[in-house]
């Protein structure tokens, strides 16, 4: 099996010199990294009670085994605190799940983010932001946990632009993309409970997504107009999903959540409505050459939905209390290409 990043970090020098030396070795995402050192890496390993050579998982298609030291070094370089390690470790195990199929979304021209959604008590404990600017900067845990995963992908799995990352455009979320669900602000059961975990079990959900599409509706006081806007965004003609029919993540921020809560809509109702309305006729798809073939009688009345089932639309709450904004995140690929996985975050006893 191949391994990457076998060379040891450079010997201690002036911090700026070390940072430059790391750039020269190609170990960064373009931003400066924290120079790793033995004591710091050991603290990362201690936080999850692992030894350097312990195996965390394997990316079968890359024929590459991931050891704990690679996770620890990249987490430290990303700026993580040791207490973030259980989240990082769970996310790395998620990358290795066959259903997630790392090689597809990581390598494809589609240029997916690896979106990390944290649920459970660990989110407030680590101050993982779920509210204002949930997808944006300002929180160390959000910024560095997501970045640790990307650095590991680049340094330990050779997922580098033009090599084993063939993104045509990529997206800024590839630097880092980690947020928590705003469970306290949600009218529904949180994502991890919906997916079979106990509320007190912290989890991280991995979702290979294309870029975020923000949806605005500041007039609607009822669910239907709001959700029609969302469905329209989900079913744009250029969307990968309109042909791939993979999963979709839909994130409602505070004021839109209030509209849905006031109307008493269940999560299931929301999914069903979005599924029914996020679609395009075969006629539209053929005229736009998103699918091949001549237009046939009945094509204007036959529809392709953006997901195969309502359950493939993952609905959750995050974001600030003000602003009539929500967002949808199309999945990379197809349901066979990559599936969302939710991993338990194991805390050392």
């Amino acid at each position, binding site marked *: 099996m*191949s391994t990457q990043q076998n060379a040891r970090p450079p010997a201690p020098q002036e911090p700026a010199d070390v940072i430059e030396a790391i750039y020269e070795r190609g170990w960064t995402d373009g931003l400066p990294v924290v120079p790793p050192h033995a004591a710091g890496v050991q603290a990362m390993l201690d936080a999850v009670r692992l030894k350097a050579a312990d195996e965390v998982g394997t990316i079968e*298609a*890359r*024929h*590459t085994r991931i050891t704990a030291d690679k996770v620890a070094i990249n987490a430290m370089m990303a700026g993580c605190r040791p207490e973030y390690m259980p989240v990082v470790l769970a996310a790395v195990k998620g990358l290795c799940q066959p259903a997630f199929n790392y*090689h597809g979304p990581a*390598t494809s021209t589609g240029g997916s983010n690896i979106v990390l959604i944290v649920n459970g008590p660990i989110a407030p404990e680590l101050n993982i932001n779920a509210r204002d600017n949930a997808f944006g900067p300002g929180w160390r845990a959000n910024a560095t946990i997501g970045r640790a995963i990307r650095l590991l992908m680049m340094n330990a799995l*050779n997922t580098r632009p*033009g*090599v*084993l990352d*063939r993104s045509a455009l990529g997206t800024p979320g590839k630097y880092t993309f980690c947020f928590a669900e705003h469970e306290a602000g949600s009218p529904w059961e949180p994502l991890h409970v919906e997916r079979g975990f106990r509320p007190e079990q912290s989890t991280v959900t991995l979702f290979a997504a294309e870029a975020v599409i923000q949806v605005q509706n500041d007039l609607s006081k009822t669910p239907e107009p709001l959700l029609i806007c969302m469905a329209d965004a989900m079913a744009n003609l250029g969307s990968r999903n309109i042909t791939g029919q993979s999963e979709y993540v839909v994130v409602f921020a505070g004021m839109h959540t209030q509209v849905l809560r006031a109307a008493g809509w269940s999560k299931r109702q929301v999914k069903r409505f979005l599924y029914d309305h996020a679609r395009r006729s075969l006629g539209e798809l053929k005229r736009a050459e998103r699918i091949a073939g001549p237009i046939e009688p009945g094509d204007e009345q036959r529809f392709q939905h953006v997901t195969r089932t309502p359950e493939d639309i993952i609905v959750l709450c995050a974001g600030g209390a003000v602003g009539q904004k929500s967002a949808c995140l199309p999945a990379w690929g197809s349901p066979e290409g990559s599936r969302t996985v939710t991993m338990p975050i194991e805390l050392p006893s």
Partner: protein
Amino acid sequence: MLDGILLEKAGIPAVSIITEPFSVTGREMASSWGVPEYRFLQMPHPIANLADAELDARADGLLDRVVWLLKVGQGPE
């Protein structure tokens, strides 16, 4: 690419064909699997929007090289 490598490892003759812009990626995959000199064929990109007749022409153009690589395999020429 990976399918071809795995078939060859299983003793089944195979020919991997990739489009030219992915030659670097194909070579890296071969290196990951411990066969950095793995032989594969290349053709122009893209293929997704080719009509049936164009695809047939591509296949015809590749046929001699496919036969050659099946005969040569991954051993010495």
